[in-house]
């Protein structure tokens, strides 16, 4: 793991882009091949849902199942290659001060919230609403939403199959770095979920920062 203190002191000035994503809001940007995106869990215990699409052909996109098959294990961590539905490496995890990320639990939606937590929760903001709105800027639709990454989300799967979203382990300032192997549309939903522990029951802002290859 990279030293958090060193990274935040030295790298802030060299970043070509820094943006704070408010709680519950979406964001997207093109990440060029070689660039590194840092996602900072500014206040801790905040799940960050993410999708990647190939700029040249957005039908090629992040694939959770291809990623897990290639890796042979169930969690996203330092060194994980994020693989597309055409079997190509889109990006890789190049630093991680948290140590636990998910790609099996998908994103929250109004419809799944209604099933999980009762019909009144259908009228709460959800990641899929964020994804639909943000993807519309790139000509993409609900049809293009696939199983996503959940950075800082802690979802242990036990040998019997028990599958549980539990309290996040990320502390304030924990971060994950994703370095692009191709030009990608990187889409984020800063998760608005208040019905399970993925955001400590209290969604908070996150920070995104981008570096050019030479600076990393």
């Amino acid at each position: 793991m990279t030293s958090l203190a060193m990274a935040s002191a030295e790298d802030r000035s060299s970043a070509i882009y820094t943006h704070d994503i408010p709680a519950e809001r979406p964001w997207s940007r093109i990440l060029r091949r070689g660039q590194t995106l840092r996602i900072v869990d500014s206040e801790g215990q905040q799940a960050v849902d993410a999708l990647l699409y190939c700029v040249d052909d957005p039908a090629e996109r992040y694939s959770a199942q291809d990623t897990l098959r290639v890796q042979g294990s169930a969690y996203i961590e330092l060194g994980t290659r994020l693989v597309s539905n055409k079997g190509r490496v889109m990006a890789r995890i190049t630093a991680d001060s948290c140590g636990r990320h998910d790609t099996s639990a998908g994103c929250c939606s109004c419809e799944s919230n209604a099933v999980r937590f009762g019909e009144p929760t259908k009228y709460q903001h959800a990641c899929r609403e964020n994804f639909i709105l943000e993807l519309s800027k790139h000509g993409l639709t609900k049809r293009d939403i696939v199983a996503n990454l959940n950075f800082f989300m802690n979802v242990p799967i036990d040998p019997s199959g028990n599958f549980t979203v539990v309290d996040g382990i990320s502390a304030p300032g924990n971060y994950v770095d994703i370095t692009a192997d191709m030009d990608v549309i990187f889409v984020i939903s800063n998760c608005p979920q208040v019905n399970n522990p993925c955001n400590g029951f209290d969604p908070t802002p996150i920070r995104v920062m981008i570096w050019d290859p030479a600076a990393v």
Partner: protein
Amino acid sequence: MLSAETKREISQANRRRYEELRAAGQEATPNSLPDATALDAKPITPEALISREEVPADWYATVRLRRGEALRIIDTSGRSSVSMIGWRDEDTSERINCADTVKVQWSAALSKGRVILSDMGRVFVSVVEDTSGAHDLMVGGSTPASTLAAFGAALRNTHENFLAAAAKVGLGLRDIPPCVTFFAPVSVDAKGCFVWNAGRKRPGDFVDLRAEMNVVLVLSNCAHPLDPARPSVTGTVTLIRHRVPRAAPDDHCRTISPEIIGAFEFTDRLYA
């Protein structure tokens, strides 16, 4: 603006509800799941039979089911795995969702009494009979890359089968969601690594999937990427489309958990 005190009370109440649902989902529900179907227990009567198809190794089939029909998938040889995707017939943007299936049921293990959900909080198909209980929702099917790695050649594979099948119903790469694979005994060990439990496969294993909405299913009979057999020993699988009773109020799948009771209600509204 809510006061800090009110916000704290709401989040504490939400945590309590979450813990109650977790306890129900991981303690009460597994205890009330029905036993696996016996291999010889549920013959399909001639009156219920609609159609039958034999799918050779490495090939695929597309099956349309009306709500209230079911598909039996039989691994006759005990050496096949069958990967499946599917869409709702009337609106193909609604499709199977493995993540919601796992998350809502608090379990990555699919077995008799469980359901497969769509992305719209509705029940896509119910697992009404199952002799196996060893299926994969996490790793997915074979691909050109996985067959090249496993067999040294880019052989027929599930990804390309899905593409071909999708094209024949007017869909494409954008419409291929993560798949479920039946008769693929995959689990996750304590370190997070995937494990293939070969002892959980038997000749004649079958599942019956009851359609809870009108669906288009694609089934690919290719070796699962974690199946260690070299070369592949996949055999023919049999698909039997047949009529079954609609899910009654006391149906096992319908009543398995508070979440799934809700998912059935939302599905029924589509056809009310």
